[in-house]
């Protein structure tokens, strides 16, 4: 491999890792809900994109950072609505019921977006989109660096919320021992709803950052982000927030690397093989104790 190829390889890795922040944010949402309720919310990525779409109503009124904040808040509201519709009144001990209800919600959100926008991509505001940082032969996109840093801020904020607030304490308690938490006087339903709101805030941020990184919003984004979010959640470890963060960056980087080395037709095969390898060799994910064989 000559120098030019090495540079391109390194650049692919850098671009992929920066883009992987959006995967981390989506993965955090999936893993947060699984960690607390031991259930998967399949509509999470779609709701994140939906929040970004709804924040478009603010675009002509306020600057971009306020649009992003709006997307986060709308994501929180959507998260609460999804909890109410798909989880609150469904039997807790029937995991298939909530799985199917969230699959239905995913399809409903996607169709709603397609119908309301006629399937046309919508421009989404990006900060620093014309800023590029050149370091020698390397080229860093200003908007991706901003997305990366905002993603890091969101993750730190989430960690602080979970570790330093009563809501975070309640969330962790319900995640570990829901019966004991209830016996201690915690309202499990309220805590679960709060978790969905927190996850929704992250999701809205993720949707906004995905839109900002790509420059447009499109209904085409919901399904691939759902798949990537699930891959990140499994690789990071179900219920592990640090795992989702690291796994998102790994999946983003690996995806670009595979594409550089093997082309776009084989890229997704290798990503799935990577997932398969984790499921076989380390089923608990990156941040879990390695599982033994039965």
């Amino acid at each position, binding site marked *: 491999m000559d120098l030019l190829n090495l540079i391109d390889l390194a650049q*692919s890795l850098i671009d992929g890792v920066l883009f992987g922040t959006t995967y981390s944010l989506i993965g955090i949402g999936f893993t947060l809900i699984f960690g607390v309720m031991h259930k998967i919310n399949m509509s999470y990525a779609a709701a994140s994109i939906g929040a970004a779409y709804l924040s478009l109503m603010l675009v002509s009124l306020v600057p971009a950072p306020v649009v992003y904040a709006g997307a986060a808040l709308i994501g929180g509201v959507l998260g609460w609505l999804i909890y109410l519709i798909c989880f609150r009144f469904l039997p807790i001990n029937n995991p298939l019921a909530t799985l199917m209800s969230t699959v239905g919600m995913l399809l409903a959100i996607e169709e709603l977006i397609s*119908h309301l926008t*006629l399937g046309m*991509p919508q*421009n989404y505001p990006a900060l620093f989109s014309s800023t590029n940082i050149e370091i020698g032969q390397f080229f860093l996109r200003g908007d991706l660096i901003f997305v990366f840093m905002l993603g890091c801020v969101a993750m730190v904020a989430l960690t602080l919320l979970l570790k330093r607030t009563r809501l975070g304490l309640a969330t962790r308690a319900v995640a570990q021992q829901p019966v004991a938490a209830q016996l201690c006087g915690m309202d499990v339903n309220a805590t679960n709803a709060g978790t969905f709101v927190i996850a929704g805030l992250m999701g809205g941020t993720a949707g906004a950052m995905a839109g900002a990184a790509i420059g447009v919003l499109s209904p085409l984004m919901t399904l691939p982000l759902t798949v990537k979010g699930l891959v990140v959640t499994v690789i990071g470890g179900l219920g592990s927030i640090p795992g989702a963060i690291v796994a998102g960056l790994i999946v983003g980087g690996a995806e670009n690397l595979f594409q550089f080395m093997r*082309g*776009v037709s084989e890229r997704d095969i290798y990503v799935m093989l990577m997932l398969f390898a984790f499921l076989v060799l380390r089923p608990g994910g990156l941040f879990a104790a390695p599982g033994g064989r039965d």
Partner: protein
Amino acid sequence: MSRRTRTLATLTAAAAALGLAASAQAQEKTFKIYGFGAKSGVVGIFGQQSEAAMQAAAAIINKSGGVTLGDGSKARLVVEYLDDRCNAEEGINVLRRIASQNDAVVAIGPTCSNVAEPVFGILQKKAGDASDSGIQFPLYTDVAAKGGLASLSQWAFRNVPSEANMYKSIFEWVKTTRPELKTFWGGVEKDFAHSNATFGVIKTQADSNGLQVLGQSEWLLNDTNFSNQVREMKRANADVVAISAHPFTSCGVLKEMARQNVKPKLIVGLTSSSSMETLQGCGAQAEGLVIPTSFAPVTDDAKNAAAAVQAVNPKYNMDLHNAAAFENVFTLVDLVEKNKIMGRADTIQADRQKMREALASMKETKGLLGKVGRTDDREAVKPYLFVQAKGGNWVVAHTPKQ
């Protein structure tokens, strides 16, 4: 007359009037043209705009008195458009559903080439072949543009432009007017039938017209990150870049090209990207993009048709795809009248046969940009021109001799 009697009389008169109206409605003849295509999903705009164009055409025809059927009576033209979601299985189901209707003589569609290919595949291959149990139902396609599909069945007819001819012409034009351009790099949406097939044509024509093909970049319809592909493009530094992709990924690539400061001397796009979607998504980055197209509002017919579609629904526009649907409705009505198609349940199979033969015997049709020729393999030879993105609009760059 007592109050009670007056009330009864009024009610009786009202009931009689309602009955007459209902009876009149029931007696009003209708002739239905079916359509099917992608009305939902990410390419839903194509089917929605085709439906709007068909309804606009029907409104014009009905304003002039409707369709004259084989028995001399007049019928109101009705359009019914079904959704196949750009999915092959659903397209086949929709066709079977349409063919089972006893008021379905012909249908316009489908939108997607990946639907058209299997749908044409279930039609009877050779008309009149008793050993072939394929569906005997004429289809007149407006959008699905992958080359050569009509040859799959003698019941399949298309009114789509020949992309082979258009790209041959555009690269001949480039060779003549831009002789300084020497090298070519291609970009292709690999998992979409139309863009993938057309890229083969683009690359061949680029090569045939003296451009050195340096290579190509590939991506998928759902991709959102094009940094690798554009970096390949940047390294190649070709004079001409062709992007064989639909608006979403075309815009993604164009934006990445702007970021990485990749500025080829000429960018050529895919026919399907000569739409408002591209200009709305990335008007600034698409500046200068040249695309061959079979529709632009450059004739009175074309302008009136575009206005008629906007009258149906202001959110819809006319482009090369739904312009064909608009033309198809007029062509089919003309054939119904000339071939005395009855449009009755008891004559339905005979009507379909007549329609097929009428479509097969057409030598030319009337298009919005001029006469449309017909080939022996049931394809169209449509007039076309080259449009260029300029200041957020598509302007005519060149009208080649045809």
